[in-house]
């Protein structure tokens, strides 16, 4: 399994086929509980909150793709992130990238702070800022790269070497790139988290979250939390993610190809001011990205010159759906100010550049000419 190339592993998954029947598609074990062979005996499966064969298959497949030893599947990306935070205890401090998904920010500020955790938000595209924020009680870095929505790139290797000198855990949210383009554990990170809802599942029809890591002790803790809190991915949704993963490489290839064309087109448009796409050579993180990832993904943010255009664009797009979320086969356009990043205070938003002129685009697998036609009409 491990020596196969990436696309082959996405198709065949960790176990391959159902060992009992040969079914090519892994079975959906839609069972809450499992019959015990006898008193004090177990088949290895007792109750689906603790373990379920279909969930195990999706979790171990994602772990395999991320080059990690242990994988865990959760009912949403936020369930995965909140489980990771259970590795810490009151009084612990985390240094977090400031350009962050609004849901993560809300979790940190409104829930975890109440549990005694402390957070400092830094521009992680500059490692010195991350270093300066480390305190005596700092336990971890939590970074998104590329970040959402401003597409800032963190140098993962540099962050890891900084973390190691201070005995910190490095956690990377790899949602935007997926293991097809970027494998943080290979670069030295300790934990990878995912919103599996996005590119991993890829069809805008399932919510899911993942944690992948190598350390056995931390894995045991995550297993305990997952079992105790119970935010597990259901068997059917696990199976849908397994199904989605099979086309991960193809979807991303096509989405990225489309995104490059869309980014270049936007750059030339007279109503567009800035285009944030890591695949553009003039993007600040382009070179670092080239060094640590094998592609640039399909997420683009851009600003228009006049804020009055925004409602028009969002009303005029037809092919591109005006909706939250990203990573699916359908192109989606999002207005971060009121949607994904509404939970972030205005002063932080302003500092980051998340203003009333910013739009975020998740490029799908439609024909690129149709996407451009749609954007052209909406922008004119």
């Amino acid at each position, binding site marked *: 399994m491990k020596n196969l190339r990436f696309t082959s592993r996405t198709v065949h998954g960790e176990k391959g086929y159902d060992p009992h029947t*040969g079914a090519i598609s892994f079975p959906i074990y839609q069972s809450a509980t499992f019959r015990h062979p006898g008193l004090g005996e177990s088949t290895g499966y007792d109750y689906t909150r603790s373990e379920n064969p279909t969930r195990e298959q999706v979790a171990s497949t994602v772990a395999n793709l991320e080059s990690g030893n242990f994988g865990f599947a959760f009912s949403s990306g936020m369930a995965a992130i909140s489980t990771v935070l259970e590795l810490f205890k009151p009084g612990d401090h985390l240094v977090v990238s400031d350009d962050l998904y609004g849901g993560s920010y809300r979790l940190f500020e409104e829930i975890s702070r109440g549990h005694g955790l402390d957070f400092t938000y830094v521009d992680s595209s500059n490692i010195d800022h991350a270093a300066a924020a480390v305190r005596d009680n700092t336990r971890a870095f939590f970074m998104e790269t590329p970040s959402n929505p401003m597409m800032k790139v963190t140098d993962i290797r540099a962050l890891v070497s900084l973390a190691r000198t201070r005995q910190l855990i490095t956690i990377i949210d790899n949602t935007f790139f997926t293991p097809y383009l970027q494998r943080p554990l290979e670069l030295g990170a300790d934990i990878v988290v995912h919103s599996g809802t996005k590119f991993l599942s890829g069809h805008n029809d399932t919510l899911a979250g993942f944690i992948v890591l190598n350390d056995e002790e931390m894995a045991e803790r995550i297993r305990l939390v997952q079992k105790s809190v119970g935010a597990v991915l259901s068997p059917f949704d696990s199976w849908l993610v397994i199904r989605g993963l099979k086309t991960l490489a193809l979807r991303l290839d096509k989405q990225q190809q489309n995104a490059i064309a869309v980014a270049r087109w936007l750059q030339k448009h007279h109503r567009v001011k800035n285009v944030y796409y890591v695949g553009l050579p003039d993007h600040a993180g382009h070179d670092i990205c080239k060094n640590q990832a094998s592609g640039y993904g399909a997420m683009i943010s851009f600003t228009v010159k006049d804020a009055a255009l925004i409602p028009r664009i969002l009303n005029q797009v037809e092919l591109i759906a005006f909706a939250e979320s990203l990573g699916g086969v359908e192109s989606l356009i999002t207005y971060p100010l009121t949607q994904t990043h509404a939970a972030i205070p205005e002063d932080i938003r302003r500092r980051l550049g998340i203003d009333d002129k910013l739009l975020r685009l998740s490029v799908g697998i439609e024909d690129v000419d149709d996407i451009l036609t749609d954007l052209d009409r909406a922008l004119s």
Partner: protein
Amino acid sequence: MQFASRLIHNGNEIDKTTGALSIPIYQASTFQQNDVTQPQEYDYSRSGNPTRQALENTIAILEGGHRGFAFASGMAATSSVLSTFAAGDHLLVCEDVYGGTYRVITTLFQRFNLEASFVNASDHENIRHNIKPNTKAIFLESPSNPLLKIIDLRAAAAVVQEYGLSVIVDNTFMSPYFQRPLELGADIVIHSATKFIGGHSDVVGGLVVAKDPEWSKRIYAAQNCFGAILGPQDSWLLLRGLKTLKVRLDFQQKSAHRLAHWLLAQTEVEEVFYPGLICHPGFEIHRQQADGPGAVLSFKTRDQATALAFLNSVKLAAVAVSLGGVETIISYPRTMSHAAMPETQRHHLGISDNLIRVSVGLEDCGDLINDFAQALNNKLKPLSSLDKVYNYRL
């Protein structure tokens, strides 16, 4: 709008009520009627179900037809179409037809006095020669299964239409992405949607598209009376599969092309059948009626022992029936897809005991070639029985 976009945006992808980007799965058998004097769009799921209808509308758009119909399997689709004919009617069927179609025609429908002649349909004079006063339709498959023979669909349609016959085409191997038979003169298109349309080896389903309102009426009557309909859950999975049809097929076709050329160069391989090869006798006709050669190929090894050793030794590819999925599937037509066909007929068609069919999946093509190379050269494996072929474990 281009094909790639139409797969994703065709008016059936967004729930009108909530805006959900994934159409709801209406797992309901019946529908509350608000006013008994006013018929509603849906009353009972056999007659119509919103999820199934989204799929039916989508396939109709992709094939360029009047109306689509979804069935519980490809054979349920074929049987429902055949059931629209009457006792005493005669059908022409291409002799390379899928084994399951051959079986239902020669066993079940024969009992109801539906006559059929199996003909070499790549020769139009031969078609003309076999038309009888009671002939009503011709049933074609191109490329054929498993030898990828090509029928000139335009020419065949033109000949039978002189006699007022209908043209039915099983388009399973191509999907509407590569071939749209209605544009070539067919009246009805049939799919085993289990294959490329579903594409993930996880749904059994069939689809039919009718060209005009009259055929739609006849097929709807069969669908509603027999009730071999596709369930809401499976309809939804096919809709999900369709979204990646183009990207899957582009990748699979590219690998199939590479694999076909690689196989040609192997000393253990006697012959390769793939309409993307210039040496394929149907290459030119196929190029004129389809947009690509697809992702299924077959080949003959130098002898049966090599074929069986190969089937016993492949590791990455699965040895299984079916095709069109993301996983590479290898089958042995002699005992699998064409087991239902009499030996003499198999022999006549060239389905020999050294023939292997390959449906190329989404694995890295280099991995597949490595796997094929070790399997073709593995003579050491014992060939105790065919049962071992099924004991596959990655």
